């Protein structure tokens, strides 16, 4: 590598970092400024002012929204891990024409856009009295996040050697016993990937909650923020504070688990 490159690369890297973080910086600057402070948004305030954050928390009812989103995300994640791994095991191990069809069905479901089935899905859930219930939206979120979970698990299970399976089979272990006793304990790395990828997807979801959780009582973060944005259309500071607050948990999680995030995204993606 030439000398010029050695000097240029860190500069380019720094420039890119600045560009990609710029919108978040501007939002933060808006959130931290007094409403009377009309200086440019590029200019960070040189005083501390947290009222916008207080407004966002109290008027935007963000705390409850955080709680609701956490409940949804954890329940969906548990179902995704349990059903995803259980479905993936025989899919990965048994070669049959039926399994090939089954795998294509799962890949097909991955391509169904949320909005394309929203009208019939809503009318069905309405008939089941499942609107505004947690069980309803958890089942829907599980269904639509299941294909990729199964796919990731199946890809991982294919890389586990079969010897242990065979030995257990000789000992008279059935499919389920094999899965539960031999395969499941080895799935920790891919489970981390599924939890991170899909947990994030559910946490950030907007379409399904928009339709299936319509009461302020059970709204999620994305819903709370979008409602807060339309309600406070002139209180930019508080609106911005709400958006910044929504970014905080994922940022902390990302910085803490960065290594797993990246491997979670790439494992199975390029095989």
């Amino acid at each position, binding site marked *: 590598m030439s000398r010029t*490159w050695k000097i240029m*690369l860190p500069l380019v*890297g*720094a420039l*890119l*970092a600045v560009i990609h973080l710029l*919108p978040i910086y*501007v*939002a933060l600057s*808006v959130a931290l400024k007094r409403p009377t402070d009309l200086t*440019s*948004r*590029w200019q960070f305030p040189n005083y501390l002012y947290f009222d916008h954050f207080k407004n966002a928390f109290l008027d935007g009812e963000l705390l409850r929204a955080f709680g609701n989103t956490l409940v949804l995300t954890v329940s969906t994640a548990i179902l995704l891990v349990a059903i995803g791994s259980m*479905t993936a095991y*025989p899919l990965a191990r*048994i070669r049959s024409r039926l399994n090939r069809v089954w795998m294509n069905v*799962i890949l*097909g479901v991955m*391509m*169904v*856009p*949320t*909005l*394309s*089935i*929203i*009208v*019939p899905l*809503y*009318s*069905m859930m309405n008939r089941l009295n499942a609107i505004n219930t947690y069980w309803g939206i958890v*089942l829907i979120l*599980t*269904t*639509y996040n*299941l294909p990729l979970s199964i796919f990731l698990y199946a890809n991982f299970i294919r890389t586990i050697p079969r010897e242990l399976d065979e030995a257990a089979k000789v000992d008279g272990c*059935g*499919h*389920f016993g094999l*899965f539960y006793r031999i395969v499941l304990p080895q799935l920790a790395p891919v489970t981390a990937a599924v939890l991170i990828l899909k947990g994030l997807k559910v*946490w*950030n979801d*907007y*379409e399904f909650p*928009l339709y299936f959780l319509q009461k302020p009582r059970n709204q999620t973060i*994305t819903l709370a*923020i*979008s409602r807060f*944005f339309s309600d406070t259309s002139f209180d930019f500071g508080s609106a*911005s504070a709400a*958006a910044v607050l*929504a970014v905080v948990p*994922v*940022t902390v999680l*990302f910085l803490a688990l960065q290594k797993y*995030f990246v491997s979670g*995204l*790439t494992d199975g*993606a*390029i095989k």
Partner: protein
Amino acid sequence: MPSDARSGRRAGLNRSRLVSRLQLAAMYAPAMLLFGAFVFYPLLSGVQISFTDWNGYSQHYSFIGLDHYRKLFRDPNIRTAFVNTLIYGIGSTIVQNVWGLAYAMLFNRKFAGRTVARAAVYLPVMISGLIMGYIWYFMLQYSGGALNDAMAAFGLAPVDWLADQRRAVSLILFITSIQYVGQAMVIYLAGLQTIPRMYYEAAEMDGVRAWSRFRRITLPLLAPAIITNVTLKLIGGLQLFDLIMALTSGGPGFSTHSFSTMINYLYFVSQNAGYSATLGIALFLSIMTITVVVNRYLYRKEVEY
């Protein structure tokens, strides 16, 4: 008696095979039930709803046959939404793949601050598209927006960024791309790391130019990463929803709508559930067709190499 023993054993085998089949069915059952109830049933009932003039809540509706499908092809708003959907889908696929690959090539070199810069590029991927849209609003606002402030500093007149169709559509395409380019980047980075260094060393010794090394070594060996990225971006971009809702809600007029936001509009605002369901079927068929065709093409390319 030998024959009895044999038939006894066969019965035992059959029973164990039956048990094995049942176990298999039990393991597949939860996923099958979920897909049946929440994917396939709605897909079919969506077709049925598309043949009616149902408003979304009434008990009464009548069958109107293919009327909605005919209307779909003549409706100028649907045509706009269709073109926009293609721009968001195919446009962001091309932009993010080229951009992401360029970043991956850059971050594949070692330099000071590399990890921090890479994390900064990747961080926005974690954030909800809806919230990213709201965050960008503070950049794009007409009065007091950060971009217009910067324009003023250079002596330029302020711009109403989202008021003009072309500019608004391009901005949505740009914002979704700059947010999610980090995802394409890490997948390409992982792909680049699977290419053995000696290929490049050998090519360099033979005097192969940098561009040819990229064309003949990097691109073909990145095929799996390219297929993954193209598929992911197509599926994501063709159903773009939350960013548009946050930035323009489809406006001004109907000019920035995608199929997804249009479905939401027809259902929520116009209360035309039948027509909305028809557009849903059109969206589903478009995504299926485009993704399958592009995937076929890419796989054929991969086999050629």
